[in-house]
């Protein structure tokens, strides 16, 4: 590093061209959407820039009236339609024709194209296709402190009854493990595990699996197009010694989430702005010409450029969506397409697909509803405002999250209500539904005060209407985790200490703060063991001047007075993976034991430990062992079997673990 540090210091920089920057800044049209300003070569260009702005005016065209694209209301048109399921039963109307839909895409696209192509920053910059799947830091949800058990297939999930993909699945007799694209099956009925067979999953990268009967559904990035493609591979485990591929479906869209309800699988896919053949300014083309040409390119785009496709068994790609299954939401939502695709585990090629012509980043599924949400990230919107300050100035929805509520019925999803909330929804763990009421933990945005809030929503006809709210949670603090119960929410925010707030949700119209506890550090994942105890996995001071992973045992019998009973520190530079991926956390009620993965860096070596936390005498007793190294640490799982035994899965092995 020292070499790089020296290079950093050595890099010669000129004095700031402050005057030029100010001049350029003043030249910016404050009331006109505009494109990426790209001053060419330092000072001399400022005038040229100003020129570009002036010429930018001619661009304004489609901004004002046309914005809302998809004309609301069913309207008289659409003659000759076959009777079909009405997928949009609330405020959103499906496009009446492909031409209408294309018009909406193009109108919005024109707002975002510049001399170098798409000028709008793409929001999900570093979200890899699976990261949304392999959930983020922030914690999880369950009933009033009620015990949270793993799913039937052995995964520690957010919502009871809604299974989530993981690298390991079991039905109690058979264990399937996927490592990258290599699927291995094990017999787990004997006294030791026995490897049965394996299969290389074709065309899929970083796969995770779901299990439905003897059908295994692998979902991952499409090998050829990792950032932009998704592949579903189903595998028959009828003969577990010889797993065989049944079907493959490839989508040219990024995976946002995958969930399983019984045998119905639902994936949410995101298609960002299409990759059009844009030009850039250069020797033969001025900035202005390039802009005009790029606008023409957008105008000439076809509906196929915008809508995702699917290809079955590597056959010809076909349209995933009918134009009439796509609805155009408010133009405050970034243009793009979010598809909701349902299929039966044993028939992945037969899909039920609908879509929103906008980008929503977050998907949360309860037992019978899917909620799509835009995060309302303030940055996102602030980045837009320089461009869209014009026509959108009065209604730019800075820092507002949009919610779309879909009712689920088997593989089918029906949009039933929409809503919005000021503030930022961090991720799916920030949402929870109980008793028909959606509860959302909202972090501050430009539209809120500097505090976190809990907001409850009820469906009222086509709207998700705010029912109650509790503000002023963790002023100037960052929301770290939430655990939801039917009538209670436990929230952790953080600045220097870990305030753990108890919020009474018995009356959802009036959420009430009933308790708060401050301890050093914070919990990124909360797991209730039962009515009395809860585990908090997070980080904090290690007691010797360092900072590292910490796991605490909380007494929550009286949620008004939550107490920290004891905490285990793992030393500096350690990290408990459950904070970012709760699937690395396993609660074994019958053994009163928790197994969870903690990593530590020893020099440049990443060591993964399995931490065994036994609950005895009202306290946690811990010991740990190194079980994996390097990247494979991410693959470590402790899988509970119905008979109470545990299989420890690592990068190479799957073996019973003696408790």
């Amino acid at each position: 590093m020292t070499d790089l540090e020296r290079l950093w210091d050595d890099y010669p920089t000129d004095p700031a061209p402050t005057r030029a920057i100010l001049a350029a800044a003043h030249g910016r049209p404050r009331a006109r959407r505009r494109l990426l300003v790209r001053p060419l070569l330092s000072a001399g260009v400022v005038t040229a820039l100003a020129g570009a702005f002036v010429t930018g005016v001619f661009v304004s065209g489609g901004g004002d009236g046309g914005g809302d694209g998809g004309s609301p209301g069913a309207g008289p048109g659409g003659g000759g339609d076959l009777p079909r399921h009405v997928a949009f039963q609330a405020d959103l109307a499906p496009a009446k024709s492909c031409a209408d839909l294309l018009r909406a895409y193009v109108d919005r696209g024109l707002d975002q194209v510049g001399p170098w192509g798409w000028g709008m920053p793409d929001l999900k910059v570093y979200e890899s296709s699976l990261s949304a799947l392999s959930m983020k830091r922030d914690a999880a949800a369950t009933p009033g402190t009620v015990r949270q058990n793993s799913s039937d297939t052995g995964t520690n999930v957010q919502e009871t009854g809604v299974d989530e993909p993981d690298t390991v699945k079991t039905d109690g007799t058979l264990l399937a493990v996927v490592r990258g694209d290599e699927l291995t099956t094990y017999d787990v009925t004997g006294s030791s595990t026995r490897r049965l067979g394996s299969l290389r999953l074709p065309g899929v990268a970083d796969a995770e699996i779901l299990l439905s009967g003897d059908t295994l559904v692998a979902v991952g990035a499409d090998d050829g197009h990792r950032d932009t493609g998704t592949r579903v591979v189903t595998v028959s485990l009828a003969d577990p010694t010889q797993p065989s591929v049944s079907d493959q479906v490839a989508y040219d869209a990024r995976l946002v989430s995958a969930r399983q309800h019984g045998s119905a699988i639902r994936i949410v896919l995101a298609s960002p702005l299409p990759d059009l053949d844009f030009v850039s300014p250069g020797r033969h083309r001025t900035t202005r010409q390039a802009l005009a040409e790029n606008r023409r390119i957008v105008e000439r785009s076809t509906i196929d450029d915008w809508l995702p496709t699917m290809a079955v068994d590597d056959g010809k790609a076909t349209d995933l969506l009918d134009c009439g299954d796509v609805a155009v939401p408010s133009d405050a939502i970034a243009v793009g397409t979010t598809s909701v695709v349902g299929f039966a585990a044993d028939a992945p090629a037969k899909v039920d697909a609908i879509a929103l012509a906008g980008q929503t980043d977050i998907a949360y599924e309860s037992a019978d509803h899917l909620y799509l949400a835009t995060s309302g990230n303030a940055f996102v919107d602030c980045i837009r405002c320089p461009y869209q300050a014009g026509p959108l100035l009065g209604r730019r929805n800075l820092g507002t999250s949009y919610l779309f509520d879909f009712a689920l019925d088997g593989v089918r999803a029906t949009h039933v209500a929409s809503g919005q909330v000021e503030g930022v929804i961090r991720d799916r763990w920030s949402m929870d539904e109980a008793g028909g009421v959606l509860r959302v933990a909202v972090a501050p945005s430009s539209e809120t005060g500097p505090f976190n809030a809990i907001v409850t929503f009820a469906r009222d006809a086509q709207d998700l209407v705010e029912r109650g709210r509790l503000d002023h949670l963790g002023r100037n603090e960052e929301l770290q985790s939430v655990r939801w119960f039917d009538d209670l929410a436990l929230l952790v925010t953080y600045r220097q200490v870990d305030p753990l707030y108890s919020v009474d949700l018995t009356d959802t119209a009036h959420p009430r703060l009933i308790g708060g506890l401050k301890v050093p550090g914070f919990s990124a994942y909360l797991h209730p063991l039962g009515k009395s105890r809860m585990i908090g996995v997070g980080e904090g001071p290690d007691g010797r001047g360092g900072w590292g992973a910490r796991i605490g045992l909380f007494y929550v019998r009286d949620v008004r007075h939550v107490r920290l009973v004891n905490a285990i520190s793992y030393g500096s530079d350690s990290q408990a993976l459950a904070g970012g991926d709760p699937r690395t956390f396993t609660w074994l009620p019958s053994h009163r034991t928790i197994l969870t993965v903690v990593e530590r860096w020893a020099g440049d070596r990443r060591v993964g430990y399995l931490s065994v936390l036994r609950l005895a005498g009202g306290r946690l007793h811990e010991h740990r062992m190194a079980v994996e190294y390097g990247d494979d640490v991410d693959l470590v799982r402790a899988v509970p079997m119905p008979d109470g035994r545990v299989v420890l899965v690592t990068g190479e092995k799957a073996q019973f673990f003696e408790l």
Partner: protein
Amino acid sequence: MEPEDEKAYADYVEQSWPTLVRAAVFLGARPHEAEELAQATLVRCYTGWDRVSSADDRDAYVYRMLLNCLRDVRRTRWWKDRQYDVPPEPVDPGQPGQPGQPGQPGQPGQHGQHGQHGQHGHPDTAERIAVADAVHRALAALSKPARDVVVLRYFVQLTERQTAEALGVPPGTVKSRLSRALAHLAANDHLLDLSGGTK
């Protein structure tokens, strides 16, 4: 903008400039692009300044802008055919004191030799190209997310929270990516080569 905001903005431009330019280089921009990017970033920030000038969030916002500008450029132009269109200053083979390393980028302190190279006539041009080249080679071992974290957290010295906000990832991710990336860099032999590159 109010005069006092204007003043604050100008001060911020002055004070943030060197770091922004360096960050752009470390994030993968070539020297001549780095200044443009820094400039474009600051110009972009002007419009939203009143909203972001609260000290806490400002840096996170500005660096998020920088990443976006970089991304815009990268997506549309030079990233696709990433080669150095401004070649390292050719080293005069006959020049004394540079024993036979024709591939070696130009050295600092030898400003005399590129005075007449048109647009690249700035005395520091060769050194910038050399440093940028060395940095890019060294950081090429990292994935883009890892590199972004290292640059923002380690070099720019944003806080963990600011880095997380700039990147749009949770703070825990910043922490784990950073430790992984630093470990990776520490083990990178390539860095050893750098010592010869500049000094």
